[in-house]
């Protein structure tokens, strides 16, 4: 087990790590900070978003501990408000939006296209620096300014609260800029840097998903940038834009906010679906079922997602015509998601399934997406939403999508591509333990919240009636399991980074194009530009025998 990190030349049959690769081609902190290598930028994103996730997780645990008892437990009302604001802003803007595109999009996209880098490498580094700047501003702004508005910054509360908001709003504006530049870079990369032989119908499904995501990033993010700046101006300058006492309309704020923030859900979840599409075919060892349908449904979700924002505002005084229209449009998201789910399940059917940690997360993902999606259909139904709006039912629903789907996919990607990124393997046994803990812990955390919401517990209160206590304790217990699972992952991944066994170039025997080069890849990805002669998810090429490789 304890293979040293030094390469030994005598056992040639064992996998080895390439002596010179992107990780050690240049040395020193400065070479990392000034790199324009998409892989290194991806790794720096990985470290950054994991740190953000850790912070967001700590804030979440603080919330769960506060909710252990009906009365005040460890904090007062104000601290609680700040805490859920911190949790929301950090998890959404610092973790979830950049997580999969920033880390795995950056790292994998050029590899999957057979390219040497993204189209604009310097712009890519700028995105990362903007992310750091925005993250620092947002975090320090929230901690020092005592931001207590929730991540939604609803006017007129946000424009009248005594707390300081400008730094965090500016931070979000800058984070938006980072997100736009990443999306723009990816779209141009996919258009211009495909290797010879790679037509659009040969792109990996992860690439399709990133493409759809990037379109949303480019088109929706400017609107949130403007909106948060307007809130900032309103707060500082009292321009009256969202202030009813001066004729302004707070509902206008909600429209502008959700015009971005609903599609933002798909910025988070589409890359997650892309990860699953790629990984499921690798672990079922079978061609992906319904390639075109999965690809087009990503674009479908991106498109429909732009016209569904009003379902956040069923109780904000929209006309019933608007409510009905937004409800119907929202259902279409369910149709496209269902297309994907059926195709994923059909991919598993009669596959030669390799039960590895990523597959456990894939199963978790499928369950959470279906459960979260179905409750999404439920809350998109106007008559039901009127009862569930602003209750824990909604909290549980969107955590099923955001945690259940996105974080599962992040973990799938992390495990599936860990050997690709670092050339080493993590400990499979511990990975299985952590996967089991996380899938169970997740259910234990959020299923009680559905029940709480249905029983009428509203969101964003630090105290609650005594009859809700049992379920709240259950939820906190689940969250502890979840947290424990993440700690285990952190430990075995750090251990694997240093002492893990060399994984070989393609430990999963995957047909994804990113595995065509060595693991970890050389600095410029490919020694020669690859020529693509097969489809990306093809485990059974014509004339080739069906392989059932045991991995």
């Amino acid at each position, binding site marked *: 087990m304890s293979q040293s990190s030094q390469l030994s030349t005598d056992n040639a049959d064992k996998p080895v790590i390439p002596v010179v690769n992107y990780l050690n081609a240049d040395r020193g902190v400065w070479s990392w900070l000034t790199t324009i290598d998409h892989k290194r930028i991806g790794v720096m994103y990985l470290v950054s978003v994991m740190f953000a996730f850790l912070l967001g997780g700590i804030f979440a645990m603080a919330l769960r501990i506060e909710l252990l008892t009906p009365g005040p437990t460890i904090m007062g009302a104000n601290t609680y408000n700040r805490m859920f604001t911190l949790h929301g802003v950090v998890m959404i803007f610092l973790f979830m939006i950049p997580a999969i595109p920033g880390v795995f999009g950056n790292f994998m996209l050029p590899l999957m296209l057979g390219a040497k880098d993204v189209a*604009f490498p310097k712009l890519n580094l700028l995105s990362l620096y903007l992310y750091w700047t925005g993250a620092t501003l947002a975090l320090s702004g929230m901690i020092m300014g005592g931001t207590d508005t929730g991540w939604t910054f609803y006017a007129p509360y946000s424009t009248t609260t005594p707390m300081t908001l400008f730094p965090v709003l500016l931070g979000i504006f800058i984070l938006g800029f980072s997100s736009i530049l990443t999306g723009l870079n990816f779209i141009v990369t996919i258009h211009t840097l495909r290797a010879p032989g790679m037509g659009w119908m040969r792109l990996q499904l992860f690439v399709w998903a990133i493409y759809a995501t990037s379109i949303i990033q480019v088109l929706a993010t400017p*609107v949130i940038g403007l909106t948060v700046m307007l809130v900032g101006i309103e707060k500082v300058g009292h*321009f009256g834009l969202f202030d009813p006492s001066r004729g302004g309309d707070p509902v206008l704020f909600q429209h502008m906010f959700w015009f971005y923030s609903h599609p933002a859900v798909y910025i988070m979840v589409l890359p997650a679906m892309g990860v699953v599409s790629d990984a499921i075919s690798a672990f079922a060892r079978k061609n992906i079922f319904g390639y075109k349908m999965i690809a087009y449904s990503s674009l479908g979700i991106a498109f429909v997602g732009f016209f569904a924002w009003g379902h956040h505002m069923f109780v904000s005084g929209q006309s019933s015509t608007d409510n009905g229209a937004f409800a119907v449009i929202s259902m279409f998201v369910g149709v496209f998601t269902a297309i994907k789910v059926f195709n994923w399940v059909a991919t598993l059917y009669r596959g030669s399934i390799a039960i590895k940690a990523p597959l456990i997360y894939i199963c978790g993902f499928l369950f959470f997406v279906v459960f979260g999606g179905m409750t999404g259909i439920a809350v998109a139904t106007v008559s039901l939403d009127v009862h569930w709006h602003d209750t824990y039912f909604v909290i549980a629903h969107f955590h099923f999508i955001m945690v259940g789907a996105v974080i599962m996919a992040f973990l799938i990607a992390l495990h599936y591509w860990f050997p690709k990124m670092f050339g080493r393997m993590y400990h499979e046994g511990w990975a299985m333990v952590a996967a089991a803990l996380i899938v169970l812990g997740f259910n234990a955390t959020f299923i009680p919240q559905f029940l709480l919401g249905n029983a009428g517990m509203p969101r964003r209160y630090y105290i609650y009636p005594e009859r809700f206590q049992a379920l709240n304790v259950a939820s906190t217990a689940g969250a502890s399991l979840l947290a424990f699972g993440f700690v285990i992952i952190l430990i075995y991944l750090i251990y694997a980074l240093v002492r893990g066994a060399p994984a070989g170039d393609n430990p999963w025997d995957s047909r994804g194009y990113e595995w065509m080069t060595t693991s970890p890849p050389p600095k410029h990805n490919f020694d020669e530009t690859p020529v693509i002669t097969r489809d990306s998810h093809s485990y059974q090429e014509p004339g080739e025998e069906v392989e059932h490789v045991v991995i």
Partner: protein
Amino acid sequence: MSSSDGGHGAHPGPHLAHHFETIEKQDYAVRLGMWLFLGTEVLLFAGLFLGYTVYRHFYYEAFHEASRHLDLWAGTTNTIVLITSSLSVALAYHAIKQNKTKTCAGLLIFTILCALAFLCIKGIEYHHKFEEGALPGVFYHFSEVTAPGANLYYTVYFLSTGLHAFHVIIGMSILIWILARVLKGEFSSNNYVPVELGGLYWHLVDLVWIFLFPLLYLI
């Protein structure tokens, strides 16, 4: 776009970044990137246009009356100035494609002067509004328009023309940077994409004004 700025004066052809196969592909990439970026700019302004539409619908009388109190002459002059500058930047692009470096530089200088003229006229207009008290939100104390919602007209007016003026300044800075590189002889008929991209950005600045002008001054 950063990856095309490698020309070193000595050789007129553009620098080909290591990850592109051909100059044509690289040029296509930077153009596509620029068009996407312009798309984001349009959406940035879209929020303010939405605000305008909603509040015009809410406070039709006030918006109608307040728009009569903008300086139509200044607005029209500025429109002509910007359209002329759009023409000159297009001609500058045309000139550099034919290796007429001096003509290109002259036209760029003219464009930059137009941008300055625009900002001066806008400044005078703003000054006038400040004196009248035709200001956003709480600062509004303009006696001639008292219909409810008039303060919101000036909120939208200052926000949208302010954001536009900010873009004029950015566009002007880009054109100055390009002018400096034209004067250094970096561009030629082989290498003109940055001039084209700067011109595209300037056209966007112009185009936004083409929409702002009738909405704020004419209707």
